[in-house]
């Protein structure tokens, strides 16, 4: 008696099931939205949700002071960066070595009132653990740079100017002696900085950067007093390059990315006339 061979029928059924499954996945992805989902444990879900909604990030730097980030987009970006660093990482325990490299201390405040503190430098230190995976170093560096950028905005520099131990202006070629800005000049400069327009991401920033255009003067701000004027830690120094076109570029030497932030405002006109003559005759 001939036995019927079902192999092909079984294969075909498996094939159709596979196609059906793939189709269902595609369909469910397409129709993920516009559907009602009933949450059974409301309190638990709300508690979890509140815990994971960061509302504010406070940053503290030894040299640049304190700043609070409260705009949602920046918080989300920082939050996402932290998640990327901690995801799939094997954290280490805190040691004296890791403590030596801390440059920023930050606190995240959540919607439910709880807080997390994280420390940042060469490593990310969060909840008693240190994340220093080699592959995550660029992300840690990028997070630090994003946070630092908030600390040397024009408004922050304007706030730092009155109390900074040294604010000097330099003209001409490198090596020319600087001149300290008097209190009144610092005040004028602060006002001008507050009125400056940020060019970040704008076409003009890149036009300025790629023009053959050397700065005509530099303002150098030392954030903390140092014992030797020639040996200033890089993290203690902000440099502002002033261009004849009425733009200026801010660089914090503690930011390892070499980033310049570009702004428009003719800072030279806020300095005494004798200074402007110095600039254009050197």
């Amino acid at each position, binding site marked *: 008696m001939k036995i019927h*061979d079902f192999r*092909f*029928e079984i*294969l*075909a059924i498996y*094939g*159709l099931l*596979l*196609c059906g499954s*793939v189709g269902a996945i595609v369909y469910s992805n397409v129709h993920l939205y516009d559907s009602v989902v009933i949450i059974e444990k409301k309190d638990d879900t709300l508690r979890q949700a509140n815990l994971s909604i960061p509302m504010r990030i406070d940053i503290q730097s030894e040299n640049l002071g304190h700043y609070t980030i409260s705009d949602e987009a920046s918080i989300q970006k920082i939050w996402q960066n932290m998640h990327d660093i901690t995801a799939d990482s094997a954290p280490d325990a805190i040691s004296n070595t890791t403590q030596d490299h801390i440059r920023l201390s930050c606190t995240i405040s959540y919607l439910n009132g709880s807080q997390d503190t994280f420390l940042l430098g*060469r490593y990310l230190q969060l909840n008693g653990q240190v994340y220093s995976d*080699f*592959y995550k*170093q*660029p992300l840690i*560096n*990028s997070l630090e*740079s994003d946070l630092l950028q908030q600390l040397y905005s024009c408004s922050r520099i304007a706030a730092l100017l009155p109390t900074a131990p040294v604010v000097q202006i*330099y003209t001409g070629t*490198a*090596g020319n002696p600087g001149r300290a800005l008097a209190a009144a000049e610092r005040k004028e400069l602060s006002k001008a900085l507050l009125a400056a327009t940020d060019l970040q*991401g704008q*076409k003009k*920033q*890149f036009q300025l*950067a*790629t*023009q*053959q*255009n*050397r*700065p005509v003067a*530099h303002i*150098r701000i030392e954030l903390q007093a140092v014992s*030797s004027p*020639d*040996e*200033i*830690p*890089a993290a*203690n*120094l902000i*440099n502002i*390059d002033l261009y004849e076109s009425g733009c200026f570029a801010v*660089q914090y*030497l*503690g930011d*390892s*990315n*070499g*980033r*310049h932030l570009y702004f428009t405002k003719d800072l030279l006109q806020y300095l005494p006339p004798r200074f402007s003559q110095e600039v254009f005759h050197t």
Partner: protein
Amino acid sequence: MKKLYLFTLVLCLTLLSVFCWHIRTVQPSVTRLPDGSPDLHGRHIVVYVSLRDEVGRAYLELFKEKTGCTYEYLYLPTQTALARIRNERNHPQADIVIGGTSHAQIQAGIEGLTAQYISPNAAIIPERFKDPDGCWTGIATTPLAIVVNRARWQREFAPQGKKLPQVYADLLDPDYHGQIVFSDPNTAGTGYTILAYIDQKLSPNETLDFYRRLRQNTAEFTFNGYTSVEKVASGECLLGLSFLDDQTSLRISGFDLISIVPPECAWTMDAVSLIKNGPNPEPARCFIDFCLEKETQEQISRMAYSVPTRPDAASAEAPPVETFELYTAFDFARAGREQSALLEKWNNL
């Protein structure tokens, strides 16, 4: 009946494969804007940048302005960029890697991590600045120079009649113990370049001795090359070893730095490569074409201070490449191949 079942099965699977492949790969072909530039509005690229942050962004912003192509980028020092591309070999997340020391991109080409693409704009670029198979193409070069903080030198060493270091080996002088800042060769291509250069110039014993003494004199190892120049510029450190373009950038910002380019100097070339099986190959190829245009190289050299690889591109701030006595025998491919072994030697000292 069997044949019918089989036919249905094969047909379903074929249609499914074609459908999936279609979703993965189909992209509209590139049309041209009135000025002849590719029209990439609605297109996107992902780039790993090992150039100075603002230089990388300038490339991308200028490209976006010209073509409409949006972008995402991640700044990575050379060694970490290579490690990341290796790590993502089976699921590439980026389309382009740009900048960093060239041994890494050459090594990426050898390992099959980057795809071949010979841009029509590469024809003018000298042979030594490009891969004949198109795995990478050089966009700019710069020598590895010694950098000195002039004020500190004049205060601490000039009164003793000491001469400025002229060659890399002068940095091994015990007088400079704890005075040098240098980028970590594990993360930064700048740091690795000197390791590879010394390995190719000296005997194995001399190389080890050089590494040991350089380590002894080094006060700090930084994450990338630029940070080491920032530390010399501020006076935090007296001496450093880094690429000349980074030093020029800070000198233009008014910092009084002395740059010394030794004879037969180590050097690098910033290159651009197409990552194999990246998600957006077509706009990525357009980006490489853009990087090799004369206008782009001239614009970028005004802020990057490196020397363009196109002989017809003028460079405002960087002297012509002939000004420096480059160690032309430097074998970038060997530097890439020997990376693990040299880093092991260095880390085990």
